[in-house]
């Protein structure tokens, strides 16, 4: 299988705390993977190491066959420098739980500024792309609004448009509905649903929304204590979990509803 992303024995520690324990995970191009697990199981960290927001203490992550955190220099393998990381980063996009929109920019500018500044695309074309994407997420009438004037759901949709505008091959979603009021969750999930069905994007989605994960994921990965306890097709994992811990987790999540 030609994996577009491959985690090879990835270990991440914060001081004495082991958050990721030799994780191995292959993700195929165009695959939609849902990552579930309890708080502290390492789900967000997994995403963040791929997005280069956290370093890895052991192992390596390969993106399109190339190592992320190491590189070749003069026939030797060394730690990746900033230029290498920046090159790899262009392939990956991320949407955050707290949206992290730039408060001093309008919705439109939030989306076109990175395109213009980082990708070097001319302002007019950048704005065109931004309008297209904001329309796709249903915010064509909020182009000139500032984040403070938008609801949580709207802000998150702008954040999705912003990440997509950079045309990444791989999109990461880090619990993007967890900070939203319940009635706003639906509009965001709809956008993700649309993305999943209409695009060939590789998507890794960390979520608590089990029904949603079941609906759109090709594969569900259950993380427990920094390790992959179980993974498989949604119907199999949710209905007939093989692992006892998976069963316990699913029961606690479903009971809480």
């Amino acid at each position: 299988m030609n994996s577009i992303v491959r985690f090879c024995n990835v270990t991440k520690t914060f001081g004495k705390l082991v958050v990721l324990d030799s994780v191995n995970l292959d993700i195929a191009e165009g695959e939609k993977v849902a990552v579930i697990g309890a708080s502290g199981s390492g789900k967000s960290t997994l995403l963040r190491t791929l997005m280069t927001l956290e370093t890895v203490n052991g192992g390596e992550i390969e993106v399109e066959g190339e190592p992320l955190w190491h590189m070749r220099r003069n026939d030797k393998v060394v730690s990746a420098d900033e230029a290498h990381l920046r090159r790899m980063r262009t392939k990956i996009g991320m949407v955050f739980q707290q949206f992290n929109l730039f408060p001093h920019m309008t919705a439109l500018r939030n989306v076109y500024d990175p395109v213009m500044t980082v990708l070097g695309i001319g302002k007019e074309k950048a704005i065109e792309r931004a309008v297209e994407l904001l329309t796709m997420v249903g915010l064509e009438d909020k182009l000139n609004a500032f984040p403070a004037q938008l609801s949580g759901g709207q802000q998150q949709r702008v954040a999705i448009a912003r990440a997509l505008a950079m045309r990444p091959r791989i999109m990461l979603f880090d619990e993007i509905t967890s900070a939203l009021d319940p009635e706003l969750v639906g509009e965001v999930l709809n956008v993700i649903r649309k993305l999943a069905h209409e695009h060939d994007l590789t998507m890794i989605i960390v979520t608590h929304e089990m029904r949603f994960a079941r609906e759109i994921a090709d594969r569900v990965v259950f993380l427990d204590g920094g390790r992959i306890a179980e993974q498989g097709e949604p119907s199999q994992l949710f209905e007939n979990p093989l692992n006892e811990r998976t069963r316990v987790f699913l029961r606690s999540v479903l009971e809480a509803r």
Partner: protein
Amino acid sequence: MPFDWDFAKSILPRLAEASIITVQATVCAFAVAAVLGLMLAIGRRSQYREIRFPIIGFVEVIRSTPLLIQLYFLFFVLPHVGVTLPPFTSGVIGLGLHYSTYTSEVYRAGIESVPKGQWEAALALNYSRYHMFRRVILPQAIPPVIPALGNYLISMFKDTPLLAAITVMELMHTANVIASERFLYVEPMTLVGLIFLGVSVISVFFLRYLERRLAR
């Protein structure tokens, strides 16, 4: 108090002229402090120890030692290594350098108050370090600290009399010269005090107004 109003009126023109020098010195020094302070604040966050440590050392030393000594240093020591600057320039550089250590702390506070998520979003979007600061971080960090910068502008204005020690003919020095001409100290000194007080009170009002407008 024996105050000779006629004498006071007669020296106002000379004092007014000298005030211009004072204002020029303040503005130029503030420009130095504002720009250099920002560079120091950003440099302090550098990942390279070779940049961070010298900056921290520099800031600590300049902040903890008298401005007067630093002015003497610039004015008396530099000529010995071949650099002779006119008094006004030395004064502006000295004053600006001294206060850049204060403004750098102000900028630092502003930068640190920007939420961590902003840095992460900018990194995820692959902004270069330069663009990260210019388009995302600084536009959020600087507006809240402008009142604090304004306070330092006023402080610098009040410190300009020190430039007299390196022969800059600013307001205080001029008053001193006038006074020693006829040994009449009361009027010049009092007038200078009132001028400083007046400017200070006006600027404080202006600053409060600015604060209120920025808080919108």
